[in-house]
């Protein structure tokens, strides 16, 4: 077996299969797994309104995050690709610089900024902009802010690489033929970089929907996303089979998103992607 394939099998396929197998059993009375009775009960349970609504809510939060990340990421990538060539590497480097710091520390930094007695609220109260502290932390706003902050660089990178591969003569031809800058962007540049947009969007969506650290820290535990639910099944309820079922469903959802992205890439990117 090729080393790469072996690597993939050991570290990716086997763990996924284990999860898949676990999903068909029940939790033992004291935790662990009751191997004696294969069952579909976990899937019936996952179809309960409670869990479906957590799934949908996570998808909603991930979708909002994705939309905002695209709105910020596309102009940023566009600006970088139009900057003088000697600056581009430095600008990209700045975009990914936050990744040099641990994710948890970056998240805690937001807590320092946003909390009711934190820097932002103290400053606002200090200049008299508000009397009572604004509710910036421990709510959905904070969670989406944290996710957008964490994952926008992926969008910038994906779209930048798409823009890089775009032959500038297309846009020039469009301008020469009398199209405005806006029309050129909407009808030439944007469609031809749709593959990059899709790749960035899927990155952000997939990473956001499975995230459990940000809802826990910036949401103050008051927001339950699917990642938190899975975490709780494995580490609090010690119901591995149900956690495995939920993980399996989440993986299926992510696969769907990736398949969609691959389709978009083939469709829109054509010979350029």
């Amino acid at each position: 077996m090729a080393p790469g394939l072996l690597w993939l099998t050991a570290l990716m396929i086997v763990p996924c299969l284990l999860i898949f197998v676990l999903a068909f059993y029940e939790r033992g009375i004291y935790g662990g797994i009751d191997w004696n009775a294969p069952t579909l009960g976990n899937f019936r349970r996952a179809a309960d309104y409670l869990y479906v609504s957590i799934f949908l809510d996570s998808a909603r939060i991930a979708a909002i995050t994705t939309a905002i990340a695209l709105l910020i990421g596309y102009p940023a990538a566009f600006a970088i690709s139009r900057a003088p060539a000697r600056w581009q590497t430095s600008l990209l480097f700045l975009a990914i610089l936050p990744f040099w710091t641990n994710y948890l520390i970056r998240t805690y930094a937001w807590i320092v900024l946003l909390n009711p007695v934190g820097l932002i609220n103290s400053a606002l109260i200090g200049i008299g902009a508000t009397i009572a502290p604004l509710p910036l932390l421990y709510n959905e706003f904070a969670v989406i802010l944290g996710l957008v902050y964490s994952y926008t660089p992926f969008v910038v990178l994906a779209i930048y690489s798409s823009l890089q591969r775009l032959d500038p003569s297309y846009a020039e031809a469009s301008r020469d033929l009398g199209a405005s800058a806006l029309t050129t962007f909407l009808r030439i540049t944007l469609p031809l970089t749709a593959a990059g947009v899709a790749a960035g969007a899927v990155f952000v969506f997939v990473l956001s929907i499975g995230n459990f650290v940000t809802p826990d820290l910036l949401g103050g535990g008051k927001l339950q996303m699917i990642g938190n639910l899975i975490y709780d099944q494995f580490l609090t309820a010690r119901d591995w089979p149900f956690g495995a079922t939920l993980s399996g469903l989440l993986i299926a959802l992510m696969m769907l998103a990736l398949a969609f992205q691959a389709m978009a890439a083939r469709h829109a990117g054509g010979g350029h992607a």
Partner: protein
Amino acid sequence: MTFKTIPAAVFAAALSFTAMLTAAQAETLVISNWDGYMPKDMAEKFKAATGIDLEIAVHATNEEIMGKVTASGGEGFDVLFVSSPFAEALNNLGLAAPIDHSKIPNMANLYPEAMQLKHDPGNTFSVPYTWGTTGLCYRSDLIKTAPSSWNDLLKPAEDIKGKVTMLSTDRWLMAAGFLANGMSVNTTEQASLDKVRDQLVETKRALLSYDDTTFYSKLVSGEASLVQAWDGWCNYGIAEKPEIKYVIPKEGSDLWVDSIVVMKASKNPDAVHKFIDFVLNAENGKWVVENIMYKSPNKAGMEAVDKAMLEKYPNMAIAPADLLKYEQLRDLGEGMKAFSKTVSEIMAAK
């Protein structure tokens, strides 16, 4: 091997692989404890006293170590430090070994009450290491009326709305609701779960956050005025800000116990008992109180503590007989599913 046991075997093999890498060799004990929950020089001192090597692993939560040992069938560790419901589960799973009291002379250092714990009367499979209560920790300078009931937490007064936190760990979160309603902290009956769920969903809207790691710093910074807290953690707040007070609500508390469990798979029963005996000496008991600020069931250790400490942290002085009045959290067994679904309902509520 039957078809049914194949997945079990594959699964256990895959997961126990890592455990085996750190498995016990002769005269080396593998301990897993929470980080910072025993003296840093424990291994050196134990080696000097007995010639036995300690290999100390850490777990962040009970559930983490439970996951590891249930997956590996108990292999890989000699001694675990876990909370009492988990000690109980380990025993029910057949993974815990009986404790031989004749090999632990220092067992005499324990309070008599420490031998009467409901999850394990007579300490047959577990030895208590720390114990305490769960109550209300608050800023006496930021709150109009000092809290005295669980309802002061669950239905916070206007002046502290949005400045209240509850523990995020499911059992204690629910315990606040159970105790407020005069129910057992081990309730799994559906109607009671529903009643408490409705209350806690209502409470959620008045909460700053769920928090079981930084609640005392939120009190210190003034972000929060009232938090549900373990007594020892409230002490961390009191240490920084004397205006912080701790009270056990009039409806009572749970009695939590963290204990030491010997694994049945351990191949060094003598060394393991020497280790427990060592942990139970007065010096280590005193270390726990002075450094973790938890109460110790170790009478000799408690008595060695400077009395000034008991004055500064009044909850340290709760008498063992009073602790024993409170109900312990027990493993919920079959009831766990209904219980955890209820918790998910609260967590998902808007």
